[in-house]
């Protein structure tokens, strides 16, 4: 009762990195918007904004890592971080839900209605005569010229195996750090990162293949949903792999211990999240 509350919970003093974050994001987004509007200044601004953003990430996370290594955080602060990460991942789930929802709506409503479902009126015969395609489709106007169907065999299946295996290796690493087995911890992390980047590489290979077949982002609703869903997932895998790479470097620098390794756990949660999203993609985008 007599202990000051500020001795129990760490409330940091002046934070300078959030401001850098705001400025960098503003430059990055304004640059991107200007680029889309055809301004020559856009790309330069994007590069500056992105570099500033990366500096902010290094600065902010570096400060937190230093504090963590100095033992500033105890159980109470640790729990705040855990909750923050959990709900951040939940918000990411909802972001993907929007795109899965678009896929569902397109397949269950948009396309069938273009074929005359819905209120059962024959208007589609006047608007889109001759349109008979079902999924996959690039629409009544045959946008992009091809709706080549990306099957689940062999590449997506191999990628599924890779991601699921990486989920196992990251769990192996987790078990290792829990008993302070640093060697296995590093090996497990290394394998996870490696598998992650192999996944991204194969995904890139698949995109090149799709474009060779004429199936593009602009190939109607199938291309839109396919590339946006797998694209945002690929971005998240790349991000997750980079986060795990940072954890690998920290593990080799001797950070973390059996009872204190939240940053690694957060990265592992994030990794499992991209894993689960992939399973959704594998089922709803590739198989069904």
């Amino acid at each position, binding site marked *: 009762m007599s202990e000051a509350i*500020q001795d129990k919970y760490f409330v*940091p003093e002046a934070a300078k990195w959030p401001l850098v974050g705001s400025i960098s994001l503003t430059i990055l987004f304004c640059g991107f918007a200007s680029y889309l509007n055809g301004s020559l200044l856009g790309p330069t601004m994007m590069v500056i904004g992105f570099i500033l953003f990366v500096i902010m990430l290094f600065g902010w996370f570096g*400060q937190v890592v*230093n504090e963590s290594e100095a033992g500033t955080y105890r159980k109470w602060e640790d729990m*705040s*971080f855990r909750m923050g990460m959990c709900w951040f991942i939940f918000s990411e789930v909802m972001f993907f839900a*929007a795109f899965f929802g678009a896929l569902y709506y397109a397949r269950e409503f948009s396309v069938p209605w*273009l074929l005359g479902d819905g*209120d059962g009126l024959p208007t589609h015969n006047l608007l889109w005569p001759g349109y008979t395609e079902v999924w996959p489709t690039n629409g009544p106007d045959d946008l992009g010229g091809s709706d080549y169907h990306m099957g689940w065999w062999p590449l997506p299946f191999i990628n599924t195996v890779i991601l699921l295996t990486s989920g196992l290796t990251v769990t192996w690493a987790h078990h290792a750090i829990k008993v302070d087995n640093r060697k296995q911890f590093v090996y497990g992390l290394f394998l996870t990162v490696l598998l992650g980047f192999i996944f991204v590489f194969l995904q890139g290979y698949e995109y090149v293949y799709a474009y060779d077949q004429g199936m593009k982002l602009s190939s109607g609703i199938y291309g839109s949903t396919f590339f946006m869903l797998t694209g945002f997932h690929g971005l998240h895998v790349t991000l997750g792999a980079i986060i795990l790479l940072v954890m690998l470097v920290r593990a080799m620098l001797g950070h973390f211990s059996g009872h204190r390794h939240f940053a690694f756990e957060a990265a592992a949660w994030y990794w499992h999240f991209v894993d689960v999203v992939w399973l959704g993609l594998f089922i709803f985008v590739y198989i069904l």
Partner: protein
Amino acid sequence: MNAYSVDHSHDDLHDHGPPPGLMRWVTTTNHKDIGTLYLWFSLIMFFIGGFMALIIRTELFQPGLQIVDPHFFNQMTTMHALVMIFGVVMPAFVGLANWMLPMMVGAPDMALPRMNNWSFWILPFGFAMMLSTLFMEGGGPASGWTIYPPLVLQTGDALPFLIFSIHILGVSSIMGAINIVATIMNMRAPGMTYMKMPLFVWTWFITAYLLIAVMPVLAGAVTMLLTDKFFGTSFFDAAGGGDPVMFQHIFWFFGHPEVYILILPAFGIVSEIIPTFSRKKLFGYSSMVYATASIAFLSFIVWAHHMFTVGMPLAGEIFFMFTTMLIAVPTGVKVFNWVSTMWRGAMTFETPMLFAIGFVIMFTIGGFSGLMLAMTPIDFQYHDTYFVVAHFHYVLVPGAIFAIIAAVYYWLPKWTGNMYDEKLGKAHFWLSTIFVNILFFPMHFVGLAGMPRRIPDYAVQFTDFNQIATIGAFGFGFAQILLLVVAIKCIRGGAKATNEVWEGAHGLEWSVASPAPYHTFSPQPVVK
């Protein structure tokens, strides 16, 4: 080993208040500072958004085109809504949460203080981006705040700036909501169980879940707009197999929970104020909690009532009609509980109580008109008329805004240590209440008679009611200057406030000094 040694920073915390100068505000991690920043930001945006509303009302003073051209009129309706929703009501609620939640649950600060700073400081940047679109080639967005394609895709240079500013505002809201959830779940003082939390904490807890669940969906929706416009996707283009209606579904899956985000914290505020000035405990505390949770749950399965006229299958119309009407049940529970709390209470009518009672009455009017709109066949008649405008302005202005103002009067003595000028406060209430009804009540009539919304011109027979509404708008707008005057006067001085401030006030926030010290609760409080 590093610059942030534990002992050093703790000495700092005990010994001194905030560092002086501008950088105090830019780099602050203190929940009270950040709350203050949110509230001032919100007040400034309130006047900007209000100015836009006055341009709209000035144009509508007479039929025919008078002051602005139609394209600019449309920009004003769009920006007025975006500013008021994302720049006024949401930041004001987050500001109140920042100030009060840690004090109400007995916490040293918000759970994630640095992120708290970022949640606020990214907002002015986002709004600078959004407002700058008004000066761009082709003007600002003019599609209405619902940014439906294909219309919104005709926006000029403003489109990508609008979309990215919405992303930034979303990032701000999500970070703020995560912080609030973590604070409530992790930072409560010993003995502060969930069912002992003040209702303002409960309503914000549930609101924060709504925010985390739906802001990313909005981000997804506007991202699809961006790729449809610039990268050749066809989510909302029938020629490619997509559907513009798909956007409406995704948007309103965000949009309907969003309207509860704009009102649930208001419910919490009113549930704090009415018991204090009735000198009675809140009637039906646990039913209030369950009602709030029910409203939040239902908000996810009612979205298509915003699009009854879009051509949905009958089964969809009926489903969304009934789920929507269901919401009246938990909302009715709340109104019943507020009235029952006042029943046989030893009531006094200080300014916060006046605004709270005004809220209960006028929010209920907005609720009833909402019930009318919930009925599909009736909505076919009212859709996109001024009746809808009257409905949501009743729940947002004498609803959400009145609750925010009530909260400001209620907690201002705790923030500043001084009592505000009661006479001016009461004048502010009566002027606001009279003019807000002059402003919005006639809109019901012109709406029922068929005047469409978002159009700068109207048929001659609507003139009288529109002129009355415009007079009300100017009256209400200028009355709000009183709020600024009262706030500044109260900050600069006045009768000293006691710790308890109000005779009937209960809760941890009233146990600390007035003004609340920079760092509250040392030692940590224990709730019995």
